């Protein structure tokens, strides 16, 4: 049973998603029950996976018992277990929030949501690069419909841009995969990493082109500088629970970069070893700088949070490009923090917008919120966490990252990271004072926070203090993940040595 556990993060959301397709217009309550219980179960399963992966052993599951490098495999290591766990936690928060009424605004919210979870979990667990493409498509097609959940002009237009861009991205993904397959003759990531190291030098140029094309595709998903223009519009027009879940979507891109460029084109790749990282460094820094400017220019709470996501993408990619144990460990810790907190801030922006009536989530003085104390507290905590002020988790993540920079990298990283944090601080304090202090009295009979919304907010924003209290065990885990990620021979040993027969029914 423990052996098959790794398939459940994909199968469970698929089953519950299908279950909810049976009758499209059935009563809401059973759907909510199914969605909540399935997501909770997913959290339990992924926690078990984290515990299983913490033994340090890399396990794989061969689908249909076709052994690698021929069959499709699912791989469980510390990083993928961590990402699946993070996804299910975030999903629980946004499903809880959606149960307050957002799920009624269009058809089949919960079903699509579960299918999207399936795509995300699959992308994190797969060990086959074509399968990565398939799961990307699964999560994208679910996200297209979720983005337009509830309808409206803004969403339709943002949705069309998002869809067209991602279709072009998928086409490029396939071209890149074709080039990689044509040069190496395999699709299994670990097997490919071995082929890359011993490749005929005359084909290196082609392989390099394919690898760069793949970086463009992942960069589009992760929203690196020249490819981020879709993000603020799409995220700020999406419904709140969907936007909260989308906080993990950019991280899927970052995960893919991390996986492909440490495993396939990592230290053991011969001529091509770590060739992407120097490029990534400058693009990441530019993303960081532009995210800081964007946060200052945002006129709406939701687009402000979207630009905060952009800052976090820049920060994470800087960590990826430094490609050392300490910086990878720091970026993994920061990734947990930033995904949960920005997700929570999207929910909070929606709650604030709902209580302010006509002023909505725009950053203008207007009618106050109905529950200034409660929402103000959440906003304060969320702002401190996302900017990275002590004592909450953002500060720990940023300090770890700053600390891991080499002296030659310090001038760039320290100045840009700290300046963008300052920009975040200025913007968040300005919007906070406009929304909470310059406001007139709120409408006493206005809409109040429902229990489900409160639960979602507490789960996501409340995760930040918990993350700083548990920083010890979490950083121990992320340190171990970073070590494992850079240990290329362990993957080869675990997956390609046929003495260890695992997978299937064995």
């Amino acid at each position, binding site marked *: 049973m423990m052996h098959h556990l790794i398939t459940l993060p994909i199968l469970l959301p698929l089953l519950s998603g299908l279950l909810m397709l049976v009758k499209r217009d059935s009563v809401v309550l059973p759907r909510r029950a199914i969605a909540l219980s399935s997501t909770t179960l997913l959290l339990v399963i992924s926690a078990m996976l984290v515990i299983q992966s913490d033994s340090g052993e890399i396990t794989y599951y061969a689908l249909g018992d076709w052994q690698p490098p021929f069959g499709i495999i699912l791989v469980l290591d510390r990083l993928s277990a961590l990402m699946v766990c993070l996804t299910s936690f975030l999903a629980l928060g946004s499903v809880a929030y959606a149960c307050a009424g957002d799920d009624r605004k269009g058809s089949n919210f919960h079903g699509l949501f579960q299918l999207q979870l399936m795509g995300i979990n699959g992308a994190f667990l797969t060990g086959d690069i*074509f399968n990565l493409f398939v799961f990307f498509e699964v999560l994208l097609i679910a996200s297209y419909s979720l983005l337009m959940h509830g309808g409206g002009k803004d969403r339709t237009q943002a949705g069309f841009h998002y869809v067209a861009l991602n279709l072009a991205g998928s086409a490029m993904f396939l071209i890149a995969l074709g080039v990689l*397959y*044509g040069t190496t003759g395999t*699709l299994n990531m670990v097997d490919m990493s071995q082929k890359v190291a011993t490749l005929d030098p005359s084909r290196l140029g082609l392989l390099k082109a394919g690898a760069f094309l793949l970086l463009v595709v992942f960069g589009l998903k992760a929203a690196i500088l020249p490819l981020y223009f879709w993000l603020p519009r799409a995220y700020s027009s999406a419904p709140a629970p969907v936007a909260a879940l989308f906080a993990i979507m950019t991280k899927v891109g970052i995960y893919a970069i991390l996986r492909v460029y440490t495993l396939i084109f990592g230290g053991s790749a011969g001529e091509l070893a770590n060739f992407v990282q120097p490029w990534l460094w400058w693009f990441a820094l530019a993303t960081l700088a532009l995210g800081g400017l964007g946060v200052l220019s945002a006129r709406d709470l939701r687009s402000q949070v979207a630009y905060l996501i952009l800052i976090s993408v820049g920060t994470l990619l800087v960590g990826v490009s430094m490609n050392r144990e300490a910086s990878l460990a720091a970026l993994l810790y920061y990734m947990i923090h930033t995904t949960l907190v920005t997700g929570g801030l999207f929910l909070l922006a929606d709650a604030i917008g709902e209580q302010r009536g006509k002023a909505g989530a725009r950053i203008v003085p207007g009618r106050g919120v109905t529950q200034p104390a409660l929402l103000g507290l959440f906003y304060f905590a969320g702002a401190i966490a996302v900017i990275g002020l002590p004592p909450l988790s953002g500060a720990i993540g940023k300090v770890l990252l700053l600390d891991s920079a080499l002296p030659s990298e310090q001038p760039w990283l320290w100045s840009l990271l700290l300046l963008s944090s300052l920009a975040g601080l200025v913007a968040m304090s300005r919007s906070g004072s406009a929304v909470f202090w310059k406001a007139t009295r709120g409408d006493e009979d206005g809409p109040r926070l429902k229990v489900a919304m409160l639960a979602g907010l507490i789960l996501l924003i409340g995760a930040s203090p918990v993350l700083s209290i548990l920083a010890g065990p979490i950083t121990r885990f992320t340190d171990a993940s970073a070590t494992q990620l850079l240990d290329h021979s362990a993957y080869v040993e675990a997956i390609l040595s046929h003495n260890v027969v695992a997978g299937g029914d064995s």
Partner: protein
Amino acid sequence: MEALFATVTGFLAASGLYLALRGRTFPVVVGLTLLSYAVNLFLFSTGGLTTNGAAVIKEGVSYYADPLPQALVLTAIVIGFAMTAFSVILAMRVRGDLGSDQVNDQRGEESKEDKS
């Protein structure tokens, strides 16, 4: 055959790219479809071009075509088909909701500015 194949793939990709960069939703959808055709052809060629080769292992046959690209193309076609259907519906929805088939409708932008 290689030259013909490469020319066709390149021509399809170029036309697809040109159409995808147009300002109206219908050419964009058609362009993305052409692009996905080009990609499918390209995927076919990744295993090397083989004429009259067997794809499944058989006694007494020594001349094989690479079967994997064919499986990949099949997957890509199915996914591309679903995506095309979705984007056609979406393009119609854009036309209905915004009253225009411009990808970047300026009127929509202005009314948004007025609101804020």
